[in-house]
């Protein structure tokens, strides 16, 4: 407790004169300030690896070149996907790592428009990421969380989403459908790199979207 300890200036063991005590005190407080500065330097040096370690998830290890995080993943032979149908496909994430377990699996909706034309949608709703379900009869994707709905081409139909479904880039090689996957699709981290050139947040009310579609009931 402080009351048991004498103030340094009152030390009885000290045989110095008052001027000598003042000089010693001044020297010691300078050394204390110096030690604070020294700890500041060491602390800053220590902070570099610690901050680097903490921020490491945000530093992109771009194995996919200009496509960003991730890699190309095969979804199976194109013959698995009948023209005009939309099917749920599971694959293992190319960035799956130690201890991911079942969370390393990913699902996506594959829509085959024609022999060579596909659309591969992320299951994650563009609103808040819940898994959308395809209803082939009403040709809609519906989200269970807040009721977002999308048309078969992935465009926004109704509800709170501000844009259509996220799409993966795909290519066909040797009769196999391959997509580029690797990060959780959100408004800022979209599945398709082609989206990156667009603004991060696209706000389109439903009413503006509708005229852009070919008037559906005449199609």
């Amino acid at each position, binding site marked *: *407790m402080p009351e048991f300890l004498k103030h340094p200036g009152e030390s009885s063991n000290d045989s110095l004169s008052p001027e000598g005590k003042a000089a010693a005190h001044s020297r010691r407080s300078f050394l204390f300030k110096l030690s604070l500065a020294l700890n500041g330097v060491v602390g800053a040096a220590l902070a570099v690896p610690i901050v680097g370690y903490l*921020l490491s*998830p*945000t530093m*992109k290890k771009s194995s996919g070149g200009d496509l960003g*995080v991730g890699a190309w993943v095969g979804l199976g032979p194109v013959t698995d996907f009948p023209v005009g149908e939309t099917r*749920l496909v599971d694959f293992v994430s190319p*960035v*799956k*790592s130690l*201890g*991911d*377990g*079942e*969370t*390393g*699996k990913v*699902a996506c909706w594959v829509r085959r428009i024609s022999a060579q034309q596909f659309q591969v949608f992320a*299951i*994650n709703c563009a*609103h*808040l*990421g*819940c*898994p959308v*379900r395809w*209803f082939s*009869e*009403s*040709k*809609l994707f*519906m*989200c*269970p*969380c*807040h*009721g977002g709905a999308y048309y078969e081409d992935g465009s926004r*139909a*109704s*509800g*709170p*989403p*501000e844009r259509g479904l996220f799409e993966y880039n795909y290519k066909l090689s040797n009769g196999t459908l391959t997509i580029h996957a*690797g*990060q*959780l699709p*959100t*408004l*800022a*981290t979209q599945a398709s790199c082609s989206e990156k050139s667009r603004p*991060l*947040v696209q*706000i*389109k*009310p439903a009413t503006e979207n*509708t005229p852009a579609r070919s*008037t*559906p*009931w005449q*199609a």
Partner: protein
Amino acid sequence: MASLKERGTAAGLIVFNWVESRLGLIKPTVAAATHPTPSSNASWWYVFGSAATVLLMLQIATGVLLALIYSPSANEAWSSLNFLNHNVALGWYVRALHGWGSDFMIAIVLIHMVQVFLFGAFKFPRELTWIFGVFLLLLTLGMAFTGQVMRFDQDAYWGLGIGASISSRVPIIGAPLVHMVLGGPTLGGATLSRFFTLHVFVIPGLLLAMAGLHIWMTLFHGVSDWPMPGRLVNKATYQREYHELAEKTGIPFVPDAAWKDAVFAAAIIFSVMAVAFFFGPFGPGGPPDPTIIQTAPKPDFAFLWIYAVLAFLPPSIETPVMLVVPVLAIAGMLILPLVNGEGERHWAKRPIAVLMVAVIAVSLGIFTRLGTYTPWSPIMTAWTGDPVPPQYLHGRSPLERQGALVLQNKQCRNCHSLDHVGGQRGPALDDVASQLTEDQIIRQVLQGGGNMPAYGNALNPSQTKALTAFLETLRGPDLAPAVDASRKLANTSEMLVPPASIPPAQRASR
């Protein structure tokens, strides 16, 4: 010769003196515990803070017990919870205590906050106590959210996805922030590890330190005196008045006031035990496998109101509201004692404070209630699970019955109810023909609008014809069919020319 009792007491005193002369904490602690407090606040209204502290102790104890078994790995977490539930003796009960303890703690912390607010106890000199209390509330909610993640099931997985999606809406740093939250590009092992670190190390450390400071400040300033209408807080005189009150009416906090805290704490802990015993642990729900999409993710009770608010925000203002309103709300709570640190403390003289509590409580209650049954969500199985009520098919023509079939097959029921069964996203269809004319029904179905998608691509003309015919029969009890008010006008002015005014030649040609 001294009796056995006297010798025992003397030995005890020697041990006590030996420890206290080295530790030096027992006497100050006893002095703090028995400090005089104004007798007016030895009240049942003043027991919530201590109850929250006791619940925090329960959470720490049960949390440590769960950590003996729980495996914080995305690979094993879900299985280890099932193992706790079914294979570890009383594992289910410790999980239940921890889960229900968290709900009780949020409730008690909120009640404590409302009590302090209504009693004006946040005013001078206890401003910083309130500010630390706001941080304690946020940390408690942080424990609740990260704790929901620990229950690594479907709801936890998609709840994290919702968290990532909200983070992604932050301008400029959205993408790095998502990766920061997830611990990598996807939601997986790294995500669970960092939420485990938050739940077990970071937030509890902050929570304990903050709670310690919060309690220290309560001791330092004394428990706030019972508010009296007309007794104003004045920075110049309050502390002198408080000390006079404590001297005049003071009773030792322990035991004269603290027995109520102790009784209430025991009642709360016993309630947690009872609720945990009768209702059991929370989940875990389905496995955290993102390829299982037959799921309707929902957050825990404390966050249902947020989930509901997110369903109602229009897309155009959703991101700004999501990012700005929480900041404003927290800032408002933090600066409250700084801008309102003096004056009237009694609730009867602070109508706006009472009104605010009422409005906030009712709003949270309504949104939480809505969150429990999510009327905005389509019911994914209604189209196959909920048949058209038989009374809507009696005496209908084949075309109309065909239309009922179209209504089911095209999943209309996922969003529209018939006879109170089906989705509630869209309006009930029981009296649709009394609301819309045939033309309006056709237009609405094909073009959509409001919150309804366009079905023009999903219906062929004959299906549309049948569906409209069926919907036209749905008029509700004894209601007239909807009519187009302008149709009669149009007919009168153009079509229905009185026969007499038409020349015979034209009449013949008709």
